[in-house]
């Protein structure tokens, strides 16, 4: 408990990190507002003129279908959080489990197979893999999530594996084994909690990666299938900008940039707080 | 009594981030006289190494706060040097041998290259000349095949040999002062004696005063003229070695002595 307090104190002192946390929290509130049906509900109605200028009617103007860009960029916050949360939670979980098992049975065939799987997944060009998954799943809306989870766990897995191998040789684990606790209990109760900081940091990194990847995938036509996202807005805007209409592009990139910047600062602050090694050099 | 070559007055070392913490070195003062071997003894963690690194100017200012009224090396006040001036003095006028022969040498350069670069930097020698001086220096510290040592990478040598390379580099420019930080702790017992004897002999031959940092009172008894006892960042005793063994005055000295006796028994 004491170390949690110390970490919180350290985070509090990190101005950029706190600003990042505030930004992420503000976005999260927007997402909650959308989920609750209070915000951004009017994102798909094509009522207005196309490419209208910003005004009282549509705060950021309208796109080529006459849809309200402001409504769409707010609704996309929800999309971003859905993708970010699902992908980061699942891939961190998968990485934690596979990494822990590999580390616990280090240098055995179990370890070898996990490393092999990670190596194989890392050797397949990512977008090719996503595209293949999307096709294998025949246009299912969560094909993108599956592909990201299937590849993003490898980094977490390797880190957790290394940490578990380190923890395994510590005295409290040795004594837990000596009194005959089963492996699974030791892993779940004594080993995994000690990798918490890695999981938290990795989850924040994967969150950013997932949102960035969604943009590219939506542009390639492999991303969000129904609904709207900043990626889809940017994909729309590739047509518009050549005709001189920048509202869609500016709104989506600004919303995206501020969230990613906030998350990156938060993630940095977490890394500094948990791993003072670099800061101490 | 010989004149002092190194005078340290009120040297304190603190971490830059936590000024509330106990300082690693607390108002350390002493004099190192020409030609003598002065031992700096104490339990591990008492601040010996930090004191040495502070004198050498090796502590990075974003982590450590170093203050001193005076650190004078033969007429030069070290605390007032620009980085460039300090670089000219380090390795030529004052030099250091480190504790870990495993990691203290750069793994990707040959021993010859690393010794040559000392000669080039401080003596302005060219390729040929620095090579010849290096081969001579390797011979001087007891390598039977200097040519081979010259072309070896550190990982190809034993711990004792690496420490000899280190001594060759430190003594290459015949410095006025050599700080030897636990130079033989990481070595096995027979090698320890050889390397230390070599070091002290070379210091005598070159007229180099040696500050010998150690926790081993056996080493102190055998090689040192005087000893400083350090405890909790402070110098608690400063005495001739025979006095120290006969009439220890500070509890920390007594503890050290009893540990040494325990090790013998």
């Amino acid at each position, binding site marked *: 408990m004491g170390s949690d307090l110390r970490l919180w104190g350290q985070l509090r002192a990190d101005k950029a990190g706190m600003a990042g946390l505030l930004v992420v929290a503000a976005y999260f509130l927007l997402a909650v507002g959308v989920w609750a049906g209070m915000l951004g509900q009017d994102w798909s109605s094509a009522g207005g003129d196309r490419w209208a200028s910003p005004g009282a009617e549509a705060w950021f103007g309208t796109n080529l279908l006459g849809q309200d860009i402001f409504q769409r960029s707010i609704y996309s916050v929800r999309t971003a959080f859905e993708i970010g949360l699902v992908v980061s939670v699942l891939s961190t979980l998968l990485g934690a489990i596979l990494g822990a098992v590999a580390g616990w049975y280090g240098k055995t065939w179990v370890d070898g197979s996990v490393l092999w799987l990670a190596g194989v997944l890392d050797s397949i060009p990512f977008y090719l893999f996503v595209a293949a998954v999307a096709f294998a799943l025949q246009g299912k809306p969560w094909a993108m999530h599956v592909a990201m989870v299937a590849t993003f766990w490898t980094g977490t897995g390797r880190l957790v594996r290394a940490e578990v191998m380190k923890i395994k040789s510590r005295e409290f684990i040795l004594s837990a084994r000596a009194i005959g606790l089963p492996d699974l209990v030791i892993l779940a109760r004594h080993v995994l909690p000690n990798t918490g900081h890695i999981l938290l940091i990795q989850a924040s990194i994967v969150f950013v990666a997932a949102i960035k990847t969604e*943009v590219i995938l939506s542009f390639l036509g492999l991303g969000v299938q129904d609904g709207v996202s900043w990626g889809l807005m940017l994909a729309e805007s590739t047509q518009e900008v050549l005709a001189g209409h920048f509202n869609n592009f500016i709104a989506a990139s600004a919303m995206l940039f501020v969230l990613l910047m906030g998350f990156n600062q938060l993630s940095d602050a977490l890394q500094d707080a948990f791993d003072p090694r670099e800061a101490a*050099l | 009594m010989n004149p002092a070559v190194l005078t340290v007055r009120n040297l304190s070392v603190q971490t830059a981030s936590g000024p509330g913490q106990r300082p690693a070195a607390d108002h350390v003062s002493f004099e190192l006289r020409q030609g003598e071997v002065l031992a700096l003894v104490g339990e591990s963690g008492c601040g010996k190494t930090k004191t040495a690194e502070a004198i050498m100017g090796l502590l990075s200012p974003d982590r450590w706060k170093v203050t001193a009224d005076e650190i004078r090396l033969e007429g030069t006040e070290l605390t007032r040097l620009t980085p460039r001036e300090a670089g000219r003095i380090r390795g030529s006028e004052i030099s250091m041998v480190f504790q870990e022969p495993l990691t203290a040498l750069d793994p990707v350069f040959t021993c010859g290259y690393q010794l040559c670069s000392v000669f080039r930097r401080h003596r302005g020698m060219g390729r040929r000349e620095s090579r010849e001086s290096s081969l001579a220096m390797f011979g001087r510290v007891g390598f039977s095949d200097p040519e081979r040592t010259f072309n070896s990478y550190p990982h190809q040598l034993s711990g004792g040999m690496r420490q000899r390379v280190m001594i060759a580099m430190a003594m290459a420019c015949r410095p006025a002062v050599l700080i030897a930080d636990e130079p033989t702790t990481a070595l096995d017992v027979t090698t320890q004696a050889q390397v230390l004897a070599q070091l002290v002999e070379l210091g005598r031959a070159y007229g180099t005063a040696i500050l010998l940092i150690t926790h081993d009172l056996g080493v102190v008894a055998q090689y040192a003229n005087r000893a400083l006892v350090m405890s909790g960042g402070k110098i608690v005793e400063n005495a001739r070695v025979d006095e120290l063994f006969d009439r220890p005055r500070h509890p920390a000295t007594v503890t050290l002595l009893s540990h040494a006796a325990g090790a013998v028994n």
Partner: protein
Amino acid sequence: MNFALRKLAHGGLLILGVTLISFSLMVWFGPDQTYSLVGKNASAEQIAEIRKQLGYDQPFIERYVSYLTDLFTLNLGASNSSGEAVSNILKKTIPVTIQLMIPGFILGNLLGIALGLLATYRKGRWIDRLINGFSVTSMSISFLVVIIFLQVFLCTPYGLNLFPVRGWQVTGLSSYLLYVTVPTLSLVFITVGYNTRFYRAVFVEEAGKDHIRTARAFGASPASILWRHVLKNSLVPITTRFMFSIPLIVVSGSLLIESYFGIPGIGKVTFDAITNGDQPVLKAVVGLTAVAFIFIQVLTDMIYKLIDPRIA
């Protein structure tokens, strides 16, 4: 010898895994081509005939083995959609991708190394913080946003209008520069943040090593410590990152850049093949990437031996 054998076995297992996964995804679960090949109102027999030709009636293992055999005998076949020989397509497109990606890839790494060194040299000072801020900013901007922005800014009348909006009509040096500049700038901007971060972390760790303290104790200047000791000791992680990002950048990076700028390279061909279910092309690309990975691993091991005397 033992070492070489282990490497070979490792490489073999990796190829096996990559091909197995890509086979399962792209061929076994991939798009069914029967109906694009048979005519309208085909009879049940015709359909069965086509399926037999395509090998759809075979069990998984047999189809996988024949897939592997084709790959290793370089029997790449012809594209389903254009009928052109796959080897021809590769011969045409790979050089384009290499010309397109090399300048940005190298510049992005060199710039990252330079900024990383500068940040390490001035660690904790304002210039280090500035470089860090720049890296985080670069990491927070989507690749797509960078491309769109640079295209509007450099290629349209709304900006400077200096370069062509899209395409690849390269006939000589000047036209090469004309078409390669904007993609290169995009690639540099998007990779430099990650690269700088990575290289700075490597350099800072190296700068904290014991032998750096030794070099300082013998009077080496900060610049020579950084240039000689830190950089030379960092060559192993630098090489690793550089080498292993080659196949990923070439395929994934070119996929996006080439489809955006309409450049006929391997990335665009691959993407089209995925959307059309053009299996012969996919087989070739996936197989070649896996082989490239193994090749790069072997090459990297050889480079390690050159740059680090401890690796024998």
